[in-house]
């Protein structure tokens, strides 16, 4: 089973996923039409991605009075707009605020793009990944560990982690510089 996992430690808040998502579904770049929402606070670096978790026991599905929400083969809860009466119950019930309804008078939510999540393909920093459940769990654990090293969780002290990464970058840069001497155009 594939899951869309969001690793918020990696997110830098560029909003490309929102632009991609709204484009994929509506052919327009419009943040309010995106199924994923990025709330940014640059000064503390944590961006929060609000999106649908495709719950095992989904509140949105349960509360829908006309059974308009059902799960597809990719595990995505899909809204059947032929049935949907636009009551917004699903949006109120979702514990994560993952369903929007402010536009087009109907609820919109993540449909996992029929198994090819557009957001994951554009995300530059692997903050959204679509992968096999087991692999996703491993990725998450790694990201959390790096987050601790980075001092993200309440850590306000300077930390060794970015320093190490910068050292590696400088090393690689010097390697490139050396090589570039031999390159001619």
């Amino acid at each position, binding site marked *: 089973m594939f899951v869309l996992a969001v690793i918020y430690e990696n997110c*830098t808040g560029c909003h490309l996923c929102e632009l991609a998502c709204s484009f994929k579904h509506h052919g*327009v770049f*419009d943040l309010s039409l995106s199924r994923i929402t990025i709330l940014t606070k640059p000064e503390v670096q944590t961006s929060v991605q609000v999106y649908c978790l495709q719950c095992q026991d989904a509140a949105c599905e349960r509360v829908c009075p006309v059974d308009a929400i059902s799960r597809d083969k990719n595990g995505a809860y899909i809204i059947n707009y032929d049935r949907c009466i636009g009551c917004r119950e699903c949006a109120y019930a979702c514990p994560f605020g993952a369903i929007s309804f402010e536009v087009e008078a109907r609820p919109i939510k993540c449909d996992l793009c029929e198994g090819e999540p557009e957001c994951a393909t554009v995300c530059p920093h692997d903050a959204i990944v679509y992968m096999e459940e087991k692999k996703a769990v491993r990725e998450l654990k790694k990201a959390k560990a790096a987050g601790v090293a980075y001092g993200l969780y309440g850590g306000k002290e300077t930390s060794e982690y970015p320093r190490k990464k*910068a050292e590696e970058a*400088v090393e690689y*840069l010097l390697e490139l510089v050396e090589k*570039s001497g031999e390159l001619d155009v």
Partner: protein
Amino acid sequence: MSISSERNVGDILIIDLTREKVVKREVSPETVKRYLGGRGFNSKALFDMIPGRIDPLSPENVLALGNGTFAGTALPMTSRLHISTLSPLSGILGDGNAGGEFSAMLKFAGYEQIIVTGRAQKPKYVFIEDDEVEIRDAEDLWGLTTGETVDWLRDEHGDEVSVAGIGPAGENLVRFATTMVDKYHSGARGSGAVWGSKNLKAIAVIGTKGVEPADPERFYEMAKEDIDYFNRNEFVKRIYSVIGTHYGLIQWYPSWKYFQVPLSAEELPIGLRPQDLAEYEVGRTQCFSCPLACKDVYYLPSTGEYGTASEFESIYALGSNNCVTDTEAILRMEHMADEYGMDVMTLGDTIALARLLHEKGILSREELGGVSLEWGDAEGQIELIEMTAYRRGFGNKLAEGYRNFAKLYGEEALAYCYDVKGVNRGWYEVDFINGIFTLSHATSTRGADHLRGRSWAYWENDKLMDIEAVRRMLEADLPDYRKDPVGALIYGERACTLADSLGRCKGSINSWLQAVPLVWKYPVFKGTAMLLTAFTGMEFTEKDIIDATDRIYLTEMAFNVKQGIKKKHYDVKFPPEFTATERAKAQVRRHWELVDEYLRRRGCDVETAYPARETLEELGIGYVADEIEGKEFPEWDGPVREVA
């Protein structure tokens, strides 16, 4: 709901603060085709609206904010805001380019440009929510730092607002005060003081509309290809997104002790190396729609503050050039400059110049009134920065900014001023990079500058990032700087004009691959023509684009002609000790040869440096010639001051 115009170009918002009136004007397709957007729109507005030599701090000055054509789209790195005005620092065209989310928000609100004129009686701010535009009282905001201002406006209007505005430095008319976007993104050349002179504290915008390309599929396909390119590029992943412009500390020879020693990577003192700065890093960030994350977010243990984007420029200008090597102190100064809203480069260079003048005895101890100008004194510098923002004591002099500051101490001081047309950029020998460095500083339409074409002309940073792309460009039509430096520079200037007009970041490491979309794949102007066609639904050819950039550039030159710029102001500056040598004299001759060739190839009069009527008419802007041809303008000598 999409923005009103079918061409995806929003309206122009004209805000007259004297009368407190707001007018919206549609942009004609013709204008889009001829001036593209952003810097192009701004430069035209300034030329058309500012009559001649006026005091930049008078109500007659115009403040123009233009988002680029592609703002708000998934074409990456296209959310730069261009801010243009008659500069109170230089007295010529002064434009700056800032990131953040403002330009995307403005586009989503349905606007392409904001033009501010006049002067409000009392402090004001402007609040824009889609079609609603209000001029509001800002008395509670006056005096707040940029961070506090943004927080205040977020409290009032919600977290979604994006804010452009000023801090205390702008209010106090510091001549290199900046326009600050969303706390941390800064646009230089003194526009902040113009906001201050107009009693305008901030513009807050919320936009909720969408942008819909004329040919959505085609546009998105190309945008995604461009995103994908950066997402796959090794250099971006392993260097750019990790150390950002601190790359320059290794590659760009930051200067030590007021431009006396260019530091190589091995000479870089501890404290100024990328890894030393990274120790304060708690995350990375970027502007809207950019995949690069070139900016660090840093934490200052001593004050408990967060800051962001401690760029190369801050490190050299506030640090090495002043011999300051205390990492946290430099980051603190950078953050102070952001909070007060001042340009770090002019700030740092002015302080370094003061130190030098003091050392040479040109600046007396009495003059200083007790402040220390010892090289490397970090604590003293922190104090000086605050004094400058509030124009207190000696800070009142520093606040005049570089050349204006030197002028206070006469010819002797001016001799150490390495500016072009009032803007600081250090000094370089003409031999360096085949004359391009000095020539590009001389020809830049906003005074000495590294972002007007210079680094592109000799593909300074592209070789490391993607050498294949450089090869392809040379095969297509990029002149080789080793054989044709003038051709290469003009080519670079066109590309930068294009980037500034489309809203594309020129890349904080100044590379072709970032400044021009799809350049890794198509010849420079071809990819852009395809994008503009898909986006606007109007047919753009490569020639249309080259012509547009020339139209913009020559309009800017003509604007400066009206401010009294003559050919002599295309000069090159050396330290007085070097000027007298034979080597220097030969270099000066070479420089003027290059300037002549440049003017000829730009279609300007080689004697006067005025854009020639013929050239202007060919570009369809004969009206520009009507305003300058055969006219004498009083010679430029810095910004005009109406009142003492």
